[in-house]
């Protein structure tokens, strides 16, 4: 019964979206009321999809195995909170979540667009409706989560054990909030193209949406990385896996976008470029969806392969992106875009920022798509190795990060005297070189990568903190810094992230080794003693648990319990890492296999400063949010000018 209601609501949402997109072109000729139809139907999408989503959650909680989606992703023994998260653990449910998030953004766009010109607003909402329609059609015709089983199974197949985890509960919704938030930016850009105009106030209107989407994307990617770290059992935090790249590319472009929007707003420049970035950002999130959902990639995200789904998304991507780009080619030249600017200006540095970010995106796109294209044409089956990404991506990021530590200072200070600026630049450069040189001796490893990483960390940290303190002292008022606090936080987050990533990649210790009970192992100044193996029963699995005692410089530190689980209904084995987290380092143990009586193969890792990776990412997230909050007061957009 609940499933029927859910199905029905989705159908209603679809019809509602149909109404929304036909109002402007067709209904407007019949009735004068079409405006209120657009405004109310764009708001109505959200409750309809939400209640449908709730119906699916209840189908899971009530173990309604007559639904194919429920029976293949849940089991009566599954704990309740995983039953809820299983709602978006498979393909169909996660597409419903996608539709839900899209309708939510449409709802917000409908509310907060009140102060836009009416005609502009109606076009904008119509385009949002078009996107909703496309995804609802995809859901109904290729991936209906409410589809019935032909015969009702006694029990469900169970949720993939890897996904029975807190990380999975939060990672997809956050990532989708980011992906789909870009649809607002996209629709806005396309509307600008339709109107052949892009006013500076509009840049001010769109920037919070881009910033919030960017924050969610950052959070979603960071959560995914964290989840992969503790759940996959390899202790890595980034693998340059095509699926990760799929989420990273829109992130890079959105990063470029939030910078170019500043120039758009302040100097009325880069208008066409910003519109192009908006289109590319959302197209890349659609591409990401296609890559992840079509099953052409092998990863934890590809559940079942269904070519029809891939074809649908690819077609949708082609239509949406193609139409937007054609519109761009036709109309962009008619927007008056000021292009001349002096070399030594904020604009030219933002241009460099954008060029670096777009180039980086392109290199990742090439590494991700080239193997797929070769495969589609049946030429060769290849994959691109991790060293490619490191060799190409990192050199592009070094100048970018360097700029992130200096440009905010250069143009925020009142002192525009070139000579004293140059003096300050060289002095700080020298001091920070010396500081990095001395601090490298704190670590037990020395190489150029660590030095560059440390230098960039101190470069951003010291320059920005110096600037903040100077501002407070000069004005004698803490409030002076609130205007740019978001940017400062995000850039400092970047610095912290770089420190963590540099240290963990250059100074980690990883051992794969056979240990017998009671045997001791030394890694750095830690000693691991393998005590015993016990067996235990979980709610829906059985486990063997290893017990390790850890000593630091001979003193007892902690007990660690890595597990090896076997899930009852799927008979799937799973490694549950034992982690002793710490600010300066993580200790990480996973059980391998039984080699002989009382002898196991294990992985033992020492990961210095790995937490900083996610702490840095979190700071970026808060930076994005603060940036929106601190600017909110002085947003006064509209058609007044």
């Amino acid at each position, binding site marked *: 019964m609940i499933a029927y209601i859910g199905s029905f609501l989705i159908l209603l949402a679809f019809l509602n979206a149909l109404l929304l997109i036909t109002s402007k072109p067709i209904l407007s000729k019949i009735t004068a009321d079409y405006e209120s139809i657009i405004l109310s139907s764009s708001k109505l999408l959200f409750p309809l999809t939400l209640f449908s989503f709730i119906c699916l959650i209840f189908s899971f909680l009530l173990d309604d195995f007559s639904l194919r989606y429920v029976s293949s992703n849940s089991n009566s023994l599954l704990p309740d909170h995983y039953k809820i998260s299983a709602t978006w653990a498979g393909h169909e449910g996660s597409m419903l979540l996608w539709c839900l998030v899209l309708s939510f953004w449409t709802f917000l766009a409908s509310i907060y667009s009140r102060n836009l010109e009416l005609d502009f607003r109606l076009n904008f909402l119509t385009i949002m409706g078009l996107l909703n329609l496309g995804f609802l059609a995809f859901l109904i015709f290729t991936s209906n989560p409410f589809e019935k089983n032909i015969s009702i199974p006694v029990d469900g197949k169970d949720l993939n054990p890897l996904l029975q985890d807190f990380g999975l509960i939060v990672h997809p919704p956050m990532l989708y909030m980011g992906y789909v938030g870009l649809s607002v930016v996209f629709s806005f850009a396309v509307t600008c193209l339709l109107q052949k105009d892009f006013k500076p106030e509009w840049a001010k209107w769109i920037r919070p949406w881009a910033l919030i989407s960017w924050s969610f994307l950052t959070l979603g990617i960071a959560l995914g990385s964290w989840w992969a770290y503790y759940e996959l059992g390899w202790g890595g935090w980034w693998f340059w896996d095509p699926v990760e790249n799929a989420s990273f590319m829109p992130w890079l472009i959105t990063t470029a976008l939030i910078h170019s929007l500043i120039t758009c707003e302040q100097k009325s420049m880069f208008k066409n470029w910003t519109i192009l970035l908006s289109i590319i950002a959302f197209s890349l999130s659609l591409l990401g969806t296609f890559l992840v959902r079509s099953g052409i990639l092998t990863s934890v995200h590809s559940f079942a392969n269904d070519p029809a789904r891939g074809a649908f998304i690819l077609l949708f991507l082609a239509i949406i992106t193609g139409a937007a780009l054609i519109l761009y080619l036709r109309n962009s030249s008619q927007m008056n875009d000021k292009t001349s600017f002096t070399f030594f200006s904020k604009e030219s540095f933002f241009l460099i920022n954008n060029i670096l970010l777009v180039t980086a995106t392109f290199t990742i796109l090439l590494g991700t798509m080239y193997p797929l294209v070769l495969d589609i044409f049946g030429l060769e089956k*290849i994959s691109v190795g991790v060293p490619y990404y490191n060799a190409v991506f990192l050199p592009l990021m070094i100048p970018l990060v360097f700029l992130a530590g200096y440009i905010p200072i250069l143009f925020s200070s009142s002192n525009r005297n070139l000579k004293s600026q140059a003096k300050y630049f060289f002095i700080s450069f020298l001091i920070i070189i010396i500081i990095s040189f001395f601090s490298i001796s704190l670590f037990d490893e020395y190489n150029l990568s660590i030095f560059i990483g440390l230098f960039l960390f101190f470069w951003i940290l010291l320059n920005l903190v110096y600037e903040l303190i100077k501002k407070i002292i000069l004005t004698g008022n803490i409030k002076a810094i609130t205007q740019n606090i978001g940017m400062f936080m995000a850039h400092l987050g970047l610095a912290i992230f770089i420190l963590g990533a540099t240290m963990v990649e250059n100074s980690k210790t990883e051992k794969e080794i056979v240990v017998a009970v009671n045997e001791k192992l030394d890694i750095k100044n830690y000693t691991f003693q393998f005590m015993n193996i016990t067996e235990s029963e979980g709610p829906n699995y059985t486990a063997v648990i290893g017990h390790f005692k850890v000593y630091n410089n001979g003193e007892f530190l902690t007990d660690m319990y890595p597990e090896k689980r076997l899930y009852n209904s799927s*008979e*799937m084995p799973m490694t549950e890492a034992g982690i002793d987290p710490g600010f300066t380092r993580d200790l990480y143990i996973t059980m391998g*296999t039984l*080699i002989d009586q009382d002898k196991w193969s*294990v992985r033992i890792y020492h990961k210095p400063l790995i937490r900083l990776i996610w702490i840095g990412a979190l700071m970026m997230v808060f930076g994005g949010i603060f940036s929106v909050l601190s600017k909110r007061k002085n947003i006064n957009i509209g058609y007044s000018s």
Partner: protein
Amino acid sequence: MKKRTARIYYISAILVLLSVLLFMFIKTFNDNLLFYRSPSQITNAEFPENYVFRVGGVVLDGSLIKSKNTMNVKFTITDYERNLDISYTGILPDLFREGQGVVIRGKLASDGIFYAEEVLAKHDETYMPPEVLESLKIDETTLQKTTESMKVYK
């Protein structure tokens, strides 16, 4: 006139720099491509010795030999036409089992054994890596029967 010559130098310097960067980029890209072969596609002397590439196939039933002291394992993969012996030192993925599709990165030695650096099995028990599935020399229904019979046998 002088200004124009300066500009020519300027532009050609940039062009040279760009082409050097492009060349380095393409070289890095090419150096890091990993080719995929199924056991029956492996021909002699296609790749130089110690060249890293990937192979894939189904782990032959009963072929897994574990060492009693070390992490060394030996097994055979097949595409149902030809077999390939694999040697690996390290911890196998959780979902590694006989009858399962795997993708392996490593080097082919002159003794005909493929020395694995990394073994990948997929995150889902019913899931066969697409490149492996495609290269198998039997059709899908036969494959299903074989893997099913293996499950019963276990």
